[in-house]
């Protein structure tokens, strides 16, 4: 137990965003350790609310989805679907009294898409603003955090 609050973020990202190859992922995993759990998905349209819910239930303070820019989806409307599913997930967690900000979606801009590493940094900071998840409270103290 470190005593310091370190949120864990679950990051689901579309594999078409910049610098999101397997190599990049491994680098980021090393950098953030348990604080950042990265889940590449071939298309954000494949994401289901249950993926986000499970992350929140089991380990994550926050779960975010990063999609390719609107209109740029290789499968045409995957990112639009992802938006609706994130919204649905927000409705579900709100209905049990969990802040809906624990789930979010980031749509890459078509002009200047952010690389995965930069996104991870930014989203980890965003998660730091959230209080520890009331879902994970019992579990948090036992979780091991490797030093960065």
């Amino acid at each position, binding site marked *: 137990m470190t005593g310091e609050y370190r949120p864990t973020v679950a990051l689901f990202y579309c594999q078409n965003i910049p610098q999101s190859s397997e190599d990049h992922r491994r680098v980021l995993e090393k950098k953030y350790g348990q604080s950042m759990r990265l889940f590449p998905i071939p298309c954000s349209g494949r994401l289901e609310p249950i993926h986000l819910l499970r992350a929140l239930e089991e380990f994550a303070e926050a779960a975010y989805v990063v999609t390719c820019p609107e209109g740029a989806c290789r499968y045409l409307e995957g990112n639009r679907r992802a938006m609706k599913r994130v919204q649905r997930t927000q409705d579900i967690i709100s209905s*049990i009294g969990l802040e809906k900000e624990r789930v979010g979606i980031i749509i890459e801009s078509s002009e200047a898409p952010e690389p995965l590493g930069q996104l991870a940094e930014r989203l980890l900071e965003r998660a730091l603003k959230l209080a520890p998840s009331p879902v994970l409270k019992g579990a948090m103290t036992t979780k091991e955090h490797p030093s960065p």
Partner: protein
Amino acid sequence: MITAEQKPIQEIRDMISPYKKILVLGCNSCVAECAAGGEKETAMLASALRMAAKMNEEDVLIEEKAIERQCVKDFVILLDDIIDQYDAVLSLGCGAGVQAVGDMFYEVPVIPALNTEFLGETKEQGLWLENCLGCGDCMLYYFGGICPLARCSKQLLNGPCGGSMEGRCEVDPDMPCAWQMIIDRLSRFGALERLEQVYPPKDWSKKQGVGPRRIQREDQQR
């Protein structure tokens, strides 16, 4: 298909509150098609309920499973091995499913997680429409394949009423007037004259004559 929608989480939480070990039971037939009670929805509801329980420091076990059909004994019996581990079942089946599971496992309370709605069609992704009442005496032939009992707000067999405007129903302008649809369809078939006759009062005994209906088929019985 039978359509249904999930009840509000709070209502579900209130109903399951006396129980400690709960099986959240999905049904992969109709309610899966209408995205209310299939495997996916069952997993989501169970996850949400577990999170809610943790947030409120409730010591409960919530597990999930989906079976093919809750309304058919042959499938429900598959729960026989595990049912004793739970003190309640939260069913995402339709009302028939909830009762069939309860019939088989008489000692276990089976709680409905869904509101069962109607017999309907999947019109498009995410849109389901009521179009059959299950009246026991199908009259679709006379009305161009559009049921006025299910689809006219006033169940007129001799419509349309005075509230039909521009093909819309007065009760809800988002709803098409079933009678306009009937007239359009019958004129397509050149069969509008079917509507010149006065259709007699509906024989509702086919629906509720002796209370709950049953179908018994000797050729199908063992």
